[in-house]
């Protein structure tokens, strides 16, 4: 008799633990799906986007829908995986889509302007602060598949709340 009550007590505890775990798993799965398919917060810092984003660090919202649908356009602010170090992400502005001719100018290499054609399936990215940005001017056009998402809203600092660059 004692054993039966002991067993039923254990069964109740195990059932409750299973339920809690299931809820946690579902929550984490939902989080993963929102993060990868819809929108996620990102912390961006560094001098390369200076007039648009602050140097010390902004928190921006990145949406992943338009990149999947192929709707990323010239002039969009994107988060892109660095072609040189896949663990790092860069925030840059798209200056040319595939087939565009880009005229660029690098103050580090002299005054001459150069011209490049963006090959198929690639984009040309550049920082807004051309003096302190490591971008397509150095490593060339990057494949579209490296784009992680498009920056569409800034949430921190609070006085800059809104669409960046406006």
């Amino acid at each position, binding site marked *: 008799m004692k054993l039966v009550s002991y067993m039923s007590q254990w069964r109740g505890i195990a059932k409750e633990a299973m339920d809690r775990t299931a809820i946690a798993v*579902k929550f*984490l*799965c939902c989080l993963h799906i929102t993060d990868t398919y819809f929108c996620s917060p990102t912390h961006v810092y560094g001098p390369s986007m200076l007039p648009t984003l602050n140097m010390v660090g902004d928190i921006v919202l990145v949406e992943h829908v338009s990149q999947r649908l192929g709707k990323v356009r010239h002039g969009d602010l994107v988060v892109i*995986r*660095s072609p*040189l170090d*896949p*663990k790092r992400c860069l925030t840059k502005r798209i200056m040319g889509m595939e087939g565009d001719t880009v005229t660029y100018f690098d103050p580090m290499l002299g005054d001459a302007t150069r011209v490049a054609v963006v090959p198929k399936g690639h984009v040309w990215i550049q920082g807004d602060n051309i003096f302190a940005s490591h971008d397509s001017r150095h490593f060339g056009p990057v494949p579209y598949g*490296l784009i992680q998402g498009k920056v569409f809203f800034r949430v921190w600092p609070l006085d800059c709340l809104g669409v960046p660059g406006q």
Partner: protein
Amino acid sequence: MGSSSFLWNFTKKFVTFGIITVTVSDRYVTVVPVRGGSMSPTLNPKTSSSAGNFSDDYVLVEKFCVDKYRFSHGDVVVFSSPLNHKERHIKRIVALSGEWFGSRQNYDVLKVPEGHCWVEGDNAAFSMDSKSFGPIPLGLIRGRVTHVVWPPQRIGAIQSPPRERLSSL
């Protein structure tokens, strides 16, 4: 009343199953079909020219390697094509970043740039790979192929690179 609650329960189960499946296939493992003969004889050893035949291999792709981007020679990887981001290709890594690599086509020796790798199909004659689009950034890699899971007579792990390829390096 009864049927609507049944419907509600069914939908709830279905959605739960869906989100768990998507999460697991995004983060951990997934199964994808292989089309085309560019990796023959490792995958799809006898492909006829007709598309969508029943002898397509299904392979297990693990995504753990993408967290650290640590790959080795001879890994078979899935990556999104640098020419068209909607396409996925399956090829074998032949050289990693910073290595000197001699291609067999024109006897050039070239250095794979930092953060890139050189991928080639096992079937060199019918393969669209780094010989046509150059080295690819590691960031494009979506996973590593580890096993063939279908058809049943071909279940097993992926072999390391074919011997003749090793001797040519």
